[in-house]
Each structure stands twice: as structure tokens, then as C-alpha cells.
């Protein structure tokens, strides 16, 4: 089975531009979440989606938005890029071992999209 796929793997943008990052979860997983990881730090939660609905949002400005499609793939959009947005953006596909009866899931990460803003 294919794992979590993210695209593009690397990209360079300039300040003020817009970027769209894409994620395809593991087959059968209906939930994805997005994280920003700045070099030397741990991942920071941005969004979680389940069944195309936003279920959670981290402390990120409104320049960050996301959506999930009927096939459970997802896009993360960042507008008006700043130098500080340079980071590794990780998508995680979430498996709910309790079949949805527990609140906790296992996160399987893609390799990430490395964004550099100049």
C-alpha cells in the first residue's frame, strides 16, 4: 500500500506570493492533519480534517487555510508568504484504531514539502 504522498517536495517562493501544498493520505484513512516544522524545532499543528470538515486549528494566522476533498486528499494554502513561513510542511494521515470510538489516532507522516521563502 502506498504511504502518505506530498507534493511538491521542494519549492522556492518569494515574499508575498501564494503557495499550495498537496497531500494524499493512506488508502482508507479519512483524516489528515498538517504541521509546520521549522529547522531545529518540533512540528507545530496547523489543521486537522476529518471527512472533509475542519476539526481543529492551531495558532496560525488566517493566511493559512486548508481543505479536504471527497477522495480525502487535502491542500494547504498559504497566502502573502513571509520569510518566517520557510519550513518543512508535514501532512499526516490518521488511523483511528478504535474505529472512531476513541479520540486518539496514529499519525503516519509523509516526507513533507520543504518551502523556502526568499
Amino acid at each position: 500500500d502506498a504511504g502518505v504522498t506530498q507534493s511538491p517536495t521542494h519549492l522556492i517562493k518569494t515574499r508575498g506570493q501564494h503557495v499550495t501544498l498537496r497531500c494524499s493520505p493512506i488508502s482508507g484513512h479519512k483524516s489528515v492533519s498538517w504541521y509546520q516544522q521549522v529547522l531545529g524545532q518540533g512540528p507545530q499543528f496547523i489543521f486537522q480534517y476529518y471527512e472533509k470538515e475542519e476539526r481543529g486549528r492551531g495558532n496560525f494566522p488566517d493566511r493559512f487555510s486548508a481543505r479536504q476533498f471527497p477522495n480525502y486528499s487535502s491542500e494547504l494554502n498559504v497566502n502573502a508568504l513571509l520569510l518566517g513561513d520557510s519550513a518543512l510542511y508535514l501532512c499526516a494521515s490518521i488511523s483511528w484504531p478504535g474505529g472512531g470510538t476513541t479520540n486518539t489516532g496514529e499519525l503516519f507522516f509523509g516526507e513533507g514539502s520543504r518551502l523556502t521563502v526568499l
Partner: protein
Amino acid sequence: QQPVQSPQAVILREGEDAVINCSSSKALYSVHWYRQKHGEAPVFLMILLKGGEQKGHEKISASFNEKKQQSSLYLTASQLSYSGTYFCGTERSSGTYKYIFGTGTRLKVLA
């Protein structure tokens, strides 16, 4: 709000043991552990649900004490492949969902 991990960094020789701790100021209902190698994505190791259970994965095990709001990761007879940064993670589900990673512990195993 971010769980605090200790130690921040540790260097081991192959075959030595290590313990990584994760402490939260907020109630923990579950704890996840991940290992991230340089330039790679985090890899899920194990999940612990409240109830004080201990789980194992090869020579890596963990415990979870929800009363103390702490979890510990135990690495026994460490191997070179154990090198990386270890993160604990926890979910917050009051109202809206959030996922929070701990501060991280860099572990280096030397031959």
C-alpha cells in the same frame, strides 16, 4: 502548554540504556511517541492510552502515568539506528481538536 521533555539531548554508546521523559502541565488522555531522523519525517513508535499501561516495540517501551501527567520512553540495549530526535505528542479534544508535540529529545548512539 507544550509538553516538556527531558533530557534535551543524550549521547549513548551502543548497548546502553536511556530514558526520555515527557511531562505536561495539562491533563493527558493519551501519549504518542515518535522518532525523527535528520531530514526525514517523524515515524510513529507507539501510543499509550490512559490507564497506566505500558507498551513495547522491539527494545523500546513506554509507560504512561496520567495522574502525574507524565510518560517515559525506555530504550534498552540501544542500537545505532536509534539515533534521532524523539518527540512525545498529545491530543487536546476540548471543543476543537489540537495536536501538540513535546519539546523533543536529541539522542545520539555511538559505536
